[in-house]
């Protein structure tokens, strides 16, 4: 990626992340649509021999041979039996029955996580710079499990099964399914086995935001990653005939619009279809759009397809407006015609102009790439949100990372829009989604694994979470673009990832496989459900009282019982006790706790208030007792923070308190 390393402080941290051999022994496995091995991001110059720990292979198939692998791309496998059994044999004229990426998504995610340094990268000149993955010296192994017709769980399980045999250290999955309990969710099942083998599994949180309860991949043994923006934008203004200008974004590159105002028409008025405003295939009347700028509304079909529809109908350009679902979040696209994307409010004003002006005109002014944009990061509107619908007491997402307008490697099989009619071919493409933020964290986890080979997956995640930031340098809270207000832990989890701080977190919250099994007991899993998930006979100790609040998670989600409808007399209050164990991974030190309680009605008591550590890996336990009056379930959640500090390290945990 370009810009992200700077944004994350990685460019200044070369000495922090020792380019030691340990770093280049870390292997990132990516389950996705495969890989385009010719991408410059898989250049292996300067890399030593493949790590001795590697057990994987470079499988051959359509348009792919084992010669396509090297010391950077050390493994490539594909899994299609589940896909083919359900949808029929792969049509090899349409997709490669091999690890080859015909889509682009897999090349983008794998190069984001572990791509080599590539000078002079850009997309048509946009987002120019030196592209590099998060862990430039890590090795990459790809497992193709996603095909044109989707990603099937029997294939995903087979890939995870093989990745464990192959000895990867990190698994990156930018995919998700519907919300189902952990023992029914193949990603959760596979991730449990990987976690037991010391493999950190990083997954995308989903793009169903900003609705609450919209997360995917919420198992506590998975690192769940939401998306935030960078400090980079691609402005393309809409200039109207009434002299007004409006901000938009675009990645269009091609013949400019004529240097004059053009007639401007609303798609809804240039169609015989009721949903003509959406610029779907075959809905625009060419006579009404020819040579004009067309205003289209987002929704239903892909954004880039709208541009293609306008172009096919003879339109000169397109202004694409957000709807309430995306609000003011602007995602840039490499449209096939001069086009720009504007926010919902702007769209409303422009629509008014189109209906009120008798001779509406417009043009689009492209400004290229701008950096230093503030505020940044903001939580992306599409980033899925908590609370965790499966276990409300486990706060998710865990963290956010860059996921909007991310440049990374691309396939040579399709153009940047992925549309059939797009015959352009690019080495890098700019796309958005939690699919992009997940591999950022996968790569950063690989960096930490290289620096601390002895750390468990939970320790690595803890370091990333407790050092994440929730405020800008000016002290203001990170914003949520969908509300324009400060985001909450249900939006950003522990905050935005800060890899340089994560390298030396001071203390970590570690979690073992047995801790997770006790967690399943607390969920009242049956022995059969536990056995399905953990592949062992594990009986919950009848004499022990299990609680989900005992899972040593680096964040807190507290669910108080909502008050019963009829309440008489004084307001009852209830208390919930959490216990946590901190492990020292830094120098000796004494840590003092600071509690930020969200409101006077909620009491957060931490005991003890001081923890002293004299040696590495020393463990200390503390308890937190939350006390709050019972409130109605409609009470909005409130948020606090628990921080331990020895003046050199801050070990921060978000607290989300709800009444359910």
């Amino acid at each position, binding site marked *: 990626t370009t810009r992200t390393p700077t944004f994350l402080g990685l460019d200044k941290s070369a000495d922090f992340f020792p380019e030691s051999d340990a770093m280049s022994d870390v292997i990132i496995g990516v389950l996705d649509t495969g890989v385009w091995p010719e991408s410059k991001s898989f250049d292996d110059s300067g890399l030593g021999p493949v790590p001795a720990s590697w057990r994987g292979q470079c499988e051959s198939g359509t348009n792919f041979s084992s010669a396509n692998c090297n010391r950077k791309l050390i493994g490539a496998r594909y899994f299609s039996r589940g896909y083919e*059994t359900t949808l029929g044999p792969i049509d090899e004229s349409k997709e490669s029955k091999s690890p080859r990426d015909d889509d682009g998504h897999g090349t983008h995610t794998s190069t984001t996580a572990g791509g080599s340094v590539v000078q002079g990268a850009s997309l048509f000149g946009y987002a120019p710079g030196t592209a590099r993955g998060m862990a430039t010296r890590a090795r990459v192994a790809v497992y193709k499990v996603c095909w044109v017709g989707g990603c*099937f769980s029997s294939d995903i*399980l087979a890939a995870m099964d093989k990745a464990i045999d192959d000895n990867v250290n990190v698994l990156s999955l930018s995919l998700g*399914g519907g919300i189902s309990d952990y023992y*029914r969710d193949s990603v959760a099942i596979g991730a449990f086995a990987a976690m037991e083998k010391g493999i950190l599994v990083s997954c995308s949180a989903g793009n169903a935001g900003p609705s609450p309860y919209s997360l*995917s991949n919420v198992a506590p043994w998975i690192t769940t990653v939401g998306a935030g923006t960078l400090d980079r934008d691609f402005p393309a203004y809409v200039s109207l005939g009434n002299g007004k200008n409006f901000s938009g974004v675009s990645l269009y590159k091609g013949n400019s619009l004529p240097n004059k105002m053009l007639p401007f028409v609303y798609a809804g008025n240039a169609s015989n279809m009721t949903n003509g405003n959406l610029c779907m295939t075959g809905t625009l009347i060419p006579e009404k759009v020819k040579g004009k700028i067309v205003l289209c509304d987002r929704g239903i079909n892909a954004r880039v397809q709208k541009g293609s529809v306008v172009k096919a109908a003879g339109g000169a350009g397109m202004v694409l407006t957000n709807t309430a679902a995306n609000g003011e979040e602007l995602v840039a696209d490499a449209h096939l015609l001069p086009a720009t994307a504007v926010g919902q409010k702007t769209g409303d004003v422009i629509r008014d102009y189109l209906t009120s002006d008798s001779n509406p005109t417009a043009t689009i002014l492209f400004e290229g790439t701008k950096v230093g944009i503030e505020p940044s990061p903001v939580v992306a509107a599409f980033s899925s949100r908590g609370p965790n619908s499966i276990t409300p007491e486990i706060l998710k997402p865990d963290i956010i990372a860059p996921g909007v307008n991310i440049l990374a490697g691309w396939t040579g099989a399709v153009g940047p829009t992925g549309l059939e009619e797009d015959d352009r071919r690019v080495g890098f493409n700019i796309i958005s*989604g939690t699919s992009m933020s997940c591999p950022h964290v996968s790569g950063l986890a690989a960096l930490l694994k290289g620096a601390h080979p002895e750390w468990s997956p939970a320790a690595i995640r803890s370091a990333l979470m407790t050092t994440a930031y929730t405020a800008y340098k000016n002290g203001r809270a990170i914003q949520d673009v969908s509300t324009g207000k400060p985001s909450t832990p249900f939006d950003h989890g522990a905050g935005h990832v800060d890899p340089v701080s994560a390298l030396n977190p001071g203390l970590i919250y570690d979690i073992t496989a047995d801790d997770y099994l006790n967690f399943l007991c607390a969920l009242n899993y049956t022995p059969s459900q536990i056995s399905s998930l953990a592949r062992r006979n594990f009986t919950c100790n009848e004499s022990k009282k299990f609680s989900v609040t005992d899972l040593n998670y680096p964040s807190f989600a507290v669910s108080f019982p909502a008050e019963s409808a009829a309440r008489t007399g004084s307001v009852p209050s209830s208390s919930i006790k959490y216990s946590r164990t901190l492990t020292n991974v830094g120098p000796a030190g004494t840590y003092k706790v600071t509690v930020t309680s969200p409101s006077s009605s909620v009491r957060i008591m931490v005991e003890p208030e001081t923890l002293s550590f004299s040696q590495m890996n020393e463990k200390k336990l503390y308890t937190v007792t939350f006390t709050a009056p019972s409130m109605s379930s409609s009470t909005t959640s409130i948020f606090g923070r628990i921080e331990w500090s020895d003046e050199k390290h801050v070990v921060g945990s978000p607290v989300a308190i709800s009444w359910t």
Partner: protein
Amino acid sequence: AMEKKKTYIIHMSKSQMPATFNDDHTHWYDSSLRSVSDSAEMLYVYNNVVHGFSARLTPQEAESLETQPGILSVLPELKYQLH
């Protein structure tokens, strides 16, 4: 007409594998599958993530398999999307 087959993930309890299989769990899986269907094909045998396998079954065969000894669960395959 043959009921439409679907793919299922079958979780087995290895500790209940009959001694006659001499620890050859793949053979045990296969014989469990054969007990409900002559034609069912095994897609994958898993070793690390699941003790079990995936197979193509009719809903009726899936239901019948679930009652076999040593079977923990027979879960329908799920489809996932890229994010």
